[in-house]
């Protein structure tokens, strides 16, 4: 029974933490371009990455 005194607030706080993280992510625009984010990981940051990207041009 005493464990509930800790566990319930912890569960709630974790939930609130997740909610806050979601709000923050949305406010900072991370849901604006979902397809772009999936593609951006393929872009090489260095300049000579250009040749690689030439190839997957349709």
């Amino acid at each position: 029974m005493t464990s509930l005194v800790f566990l319930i607030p912890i569960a709630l706080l974790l939930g609130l933490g997740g909610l806050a993280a979601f709000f923050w992510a949305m406010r900072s625009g991370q849901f604006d371009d979902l397809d772009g984010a999936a593609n951006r990981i393929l872009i090489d940051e260095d300049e000579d990455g250009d040749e690689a990207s030439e190839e997957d041009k349709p």
Partner: protein
Amino acid sequence: MNALADIAAPAGTDALVDSRFTVPGMRCAGCIGKVERGLGAVPGVEAARVNFSAKRVAVRHSAEIDPFALIGELEKLGFEAQLASDNPLAQDDRETRMLLRATAVAGFGMMNVMLLSVSVWSGAGGVTKDLFHWLSALIAIPVIAYAGRPFFSSALMALSHRRTNMDVPISIGVLLATGLSLYETVTGGQHAYFDGATMLLFFLLCGRALDAMMRGRTRAGIGALLGRMGRSASVVQADGSTRRLATDQLFPGMVMIVAAGEALAADGEVIEGHGAIDNAMLTGESEPEPVGPGQMVHAGSMNLTAPLTVRITATASDTVIAEIARLMDEAGQSRSRYVRIADRASRLYAPAVHTLALAAFAGWMIAGAGWYQSLVIAIAVLIITCPCALGLAVPAAQVTAASALLKQGVLVKDGSALERLAQVDMVLFDKTGTLTLGEPVPDLSMLDAGQKSAALALAERSRHPLSVGLAKALHDEGVTAAPVKEVLETAGHGLTGMMGGLAVALEKPEQAGTSVASELRLGDRTVMIPFRDRLREDAAEVVASLKQQGIPVSMMSGDRSDAVRDVASELGLFGRCGMKPEEKLAELERLKALGHLPLMVGDGLNDGPALAAAHASIAPGSASDASQQAADAVFLGTRLAPVLAALKISRRTMQIVKQNFGLAIGYNVLAVPLALAGYVTPLIAAIAMSTSSLIVVANSLRLARSGR
């Protein structure tokens, strides 16, 4: 608005402006990198950020750079681009974000309340149960107050207009359940329904958010169309000097000088100068039109060759292009009156649910169950008939279908577009740019190597569409340009130059035939280069397949040329030529009045009103921005097959939607009698509700496979 704002402008650069471009050609990670890096390297550009989902680029640049110059830069990178109006998405965006936030909050509340409820159902009693009910209330009441707003405000709106919609029973159910649960909690009673209320909100909000995302793809159109007009003009002052004036400062009677390559900012009459204008956006005619003194020119068309002096006759909202925008707007409005399936269903559904709940309450009161017991049963009926599954039935299917279509290269902008596409019973095509690729391709078989390189040298210097097409074809063959000097372009006539001691020219042929052609002259030898606008490679198959499905196909073209007849006979369909935008619109209105549900496929700005008026419409990705906005769907690539795919998948979607309705209604038929009989405990109600929702979602996911 988002990532751009994060890139802090360095101190001191005060004159930075944002421009947004639509770049439909971006299809891969490489394209994102190319566009961002390429634009970033342009002097004066502060930052460029691609939004891949929306196929847009936001560019932050110094005010000295003309946005149209940036379009040129994008073209150099190999991407067609159009200027997009200033963030027309803001409104839709806000709605989607609000719904997403509400969904997250409802989800949070649902999970935590459920955690506590499960303990109560498993037999927690006494103080623990009361404590848990209080905790549930503490979590659920703010959550319901926040997440329920979309429903409450919509229900209030409907009630204040003495109407009822799906949100009314939802709101009543949620509020009654919350109130009763609070009463139970305060009096230390057995049952609290906070879990049911939050879960109801969560599933409904999922449906709403999916629906809003779907609609978020729709983009506001009219602003983009007017954005094609020149934004300013050089006006001749009384003392003979010129001054740059913004479009809204122009008045009829003013005289403006339009440089080559400049878009006209107002309608007017040419008083000096000969040149050619690209009028394609108004007439659909792909050939440039030669103009001289006395002829009318219109805002939005592009002066291609020599400077023109124009006396303004109409500005702003009186221009022909503004008229097209108005037609588009009106036609679009008449179509938006189309009632969405879910709304139609709810019109029957809401009164039925209310009656049922009221009957349950009255029945149990008469049977002598006491007002408390009767109210609990009435609420159980309201909750169990909760249109969760019904609310998910349409959006879940439509979002799955839309992503399946996206894989086929079709971007559907609105859920109701799928409903309309599925009903189409005839198809009307525009010619140039729709059935054909819209770019003149030269026949190079008559030229030898020397002539090719001379032709390339000349064609490279001009922005005339034929020259551009010729230069592209020659480049593709790997021809290198000959050293031609003293190249001169004469408007409406052609190009001349000197190659060594030889006079060379690329001109309009002397005898203007019925087909489009250029004449290449080397010394005194001349060669004709005929041009053809090629059909899309699978146009014939698509037309044949449509006919096979019993859907009549015809063609409406703004072109006056015989090309219309050629295409019509090649594809074996009925075609009309020389149609003005308002004639196309009238034709569609006539067909609709006859009870047909026409699908319009077109690309030109002149098709805009027709696209907006048709029952459903599709535009190719190469279409003007405004046409893409007016259309329900946009297809990418050089093939026409996506049009067929769109029809097929939309029909399949409607089948799935009907099945979903069947499942949702079937669930109600089973559950409602139990609820009416008073057998439904909170646990059963919760499980039944989520199961029915999950079944509907799973059924919708089957659509993802039909995309392949």
